[in-house]
């Protein structure tokens, strides 16, 4: 009788995440003057647009049962290639941007193929990818390359007015990516195949799903998203640097997990990932408003949240198993 009122346990993590976000926003608004404004919320999106894009790609990888540790390095490589081409070789930005997106996608394609065809663990292959991309940055240059190209500067300063404030063009890109990803995940064959592979790869094979194609596509998508995030970072920082986005892979994984995606694969939500990123952003905003706390508290807070959510997932999946056994 009460079953209608109950939330499906699959949706519980995302509900908890959303509730937590609202709670934190409320606490922030009550505690700090000037916190409760549309612009604070918009800033969350502006500062984390690139993280949203990477995390969306990572969601697909994790849903399919894999992991991609190379994302941060691919971002750095993208900023580096962009800056070097635009600044030192005077290639027009409209050629550079598609090119770096292609580079990211090909990078993902190579890693995906190695993972699938040689049955190596995604963890170790993407780790090698991470070394490689970061190393290639330094091959291009060990210094920061500043971009003063008018196109990049124009885009970076563009403000789109909204009620109560403004957003940047990066936010628009990020939200479009989220929308497309939601469509891909829940309304296409590719999405269903990715979930099925994450649930049980062997059954997916037996069902006749295109496992090879889907697995490789997932890493290509992640590579593309990382490169796109790299483009956004280039707009944001107006520079290419080999140390950009250092350690970002962990923030990304944390965002995906906090957003309710199971690290064992098969269950996850792109929309949840968006909220996961916003939670990380709001922790940073609160620490900024608090003023007396330092940036490392962000890491500790994210670690604690990560812990709580993983334990929550663990309890939920254990509960499901018990239910099945009981029935």
């Amino acid at each position: 009788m009460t079953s209608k009122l109950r939330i499906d346990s699959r949706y519980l993590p995302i509900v908890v995440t959303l509730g937590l976000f609202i709670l934190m926003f409320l606490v922030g608004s009550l505690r700090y003057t000037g916190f409760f404004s549309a612009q604070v919320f918009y800033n969350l999106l502006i500062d984390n647009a690139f993280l949203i894009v990477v995390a969306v790609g990572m969601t697909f990888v994790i849903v399919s049962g894999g992991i991609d540790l190379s994302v941060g390095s691919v971002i750095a490589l993208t900023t580096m290639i962009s800056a070097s081409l635009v600044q030192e070789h005077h290639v027009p930005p409209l050629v550079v941007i598609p090119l770096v997106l292609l580079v990211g996608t090909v990078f993902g394609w190579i890693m995906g193929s190695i993972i699938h065809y040689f049955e190596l663990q995604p963890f170790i292959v993407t780790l090698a990818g991470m070394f490689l991309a970061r190393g290639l940055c330094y091959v291009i240059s060990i210094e920061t390359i500043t971009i003063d190209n008018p196109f990049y500067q124009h885009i970076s300063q563009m403000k789109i007015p909204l009620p109560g404030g403004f957003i940047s063009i990066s936010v628009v890109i990020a939200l479009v990516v989220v929308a497309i990803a939601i469509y891909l995940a829940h309304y296409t064959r590719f999405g269903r195949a990715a979930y099925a592979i994450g649930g049980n790869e062997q059954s997916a094979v037996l069902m006749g799903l295109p496992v090879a194609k889907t697995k490789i596509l997932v890493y290509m998508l992640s590579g593309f998203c990382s490169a796109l995030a790299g483009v956004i970072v280039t707009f944001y920082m107006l520079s290419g640097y080999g140390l950009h986005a250092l350690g970002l892979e962990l923030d990304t994984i944390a965002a995906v997990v906090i957003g309710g995606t199971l690290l064992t694969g098969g269950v996850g939500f792109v929309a949840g990932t968006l909220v996961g990123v916003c939670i990380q952003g709001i922790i940073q905003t609160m620490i900024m408003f608090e003023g007396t706390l330092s940036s490392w508290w962000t890491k500790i807070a994210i670690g604690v949240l990560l812990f709580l959510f993983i334990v929550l997932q663990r309890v939920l999946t254990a509960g499901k198993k018990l239910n099945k056994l009981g029935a």
Partner: protein
Amino acid sequence: MKNRLVWALLMLVVLIVINVIKTPTFLQIELKDGHLFGSLIDILNRAAPLILISIGMTLVIATKGIDLSVGSVVAIAGAVACLFVSQHESGDSTVSTMFTAIGLALILSLVAGVWNGLLVSAIGIQPIVATLILMVAGRGLAQLITGGQIITVSMKPYSFIGAGYLAGLPFSIFIAAGIFIIALLLTRKTALGMFIESVGSNPEASRLSGIYAKSVIWIVYIFCGLCAGIAGLILSSNVSSADGNNAGLWYELDAILAVVIGGTSLNGGRFYLLGTVIGALIIQTLTTTIYSIGVPPEITLVVKAFVVLIVCLVQSDNFRKKISYLAKNRSKARQAAKKEVSA
């Protein structure tokens, strides 16, 4: 096992030969003021922390686990020891201060290992995720301890751990060797090693056959935490400072690489401690070589990437199958072509 050791040793020898060709004095060891000096000693000295961490990592990987938090534990251990030393530097009993600092650091790294073990064995979280938590939060904790600054210490007894000499050799080598021998004795002279391998190949089966699988997993994470803590002490003592932001950064990756090069499979169930030590030496020699050849050190990462990939590919059965399949096809095609020609 011998086969794998041979490959690793060969790699090490090739690296050393490259070095000797580039710098003929590479193998020379001099005796100055009772201390031995030379590139080889230098490599051993610098490899000591990596060897320690890799030994811990080997046992964790043998249980089909992974410990991503070692770099953060390195930072935490160094930070807490240096903080304590710097606060009590002006005191009289320097030696007891040093031992308290070491004790504090080791207790914290023990706690880190207990925490990882708790998540992996008692709660049953995937190792990569469970240790990710401490990797993220641990770096934050290390920064919290150092206040985001670099803490410098200038205490003689403390700097002995990482920069001192014993019998002409750097003291850190003795620490690494000691831990290696302890690990070797524990795993090869007692049943512990067999338990670890059995848990790594099938935890459920080993539990059913009467092994306390959970305790075994717990033990390896604690041991790994301790190894990382000792490495943190050596590293911080060597540079007489603790840096919460950068100490131990990337160490988890180098350690995993050392273990894999040493022939231990990431799928668990088997481990080679000696291979790991050689693996760690290869990585350190590689880094030194890259410096000495005059290639920009930035390229180290690219080289490491290819080393990881090649080693993993060689370990992959599928890869070997495909290569031999390709080779067969080619020889078949050649034979067919020969037949056509002769016909």
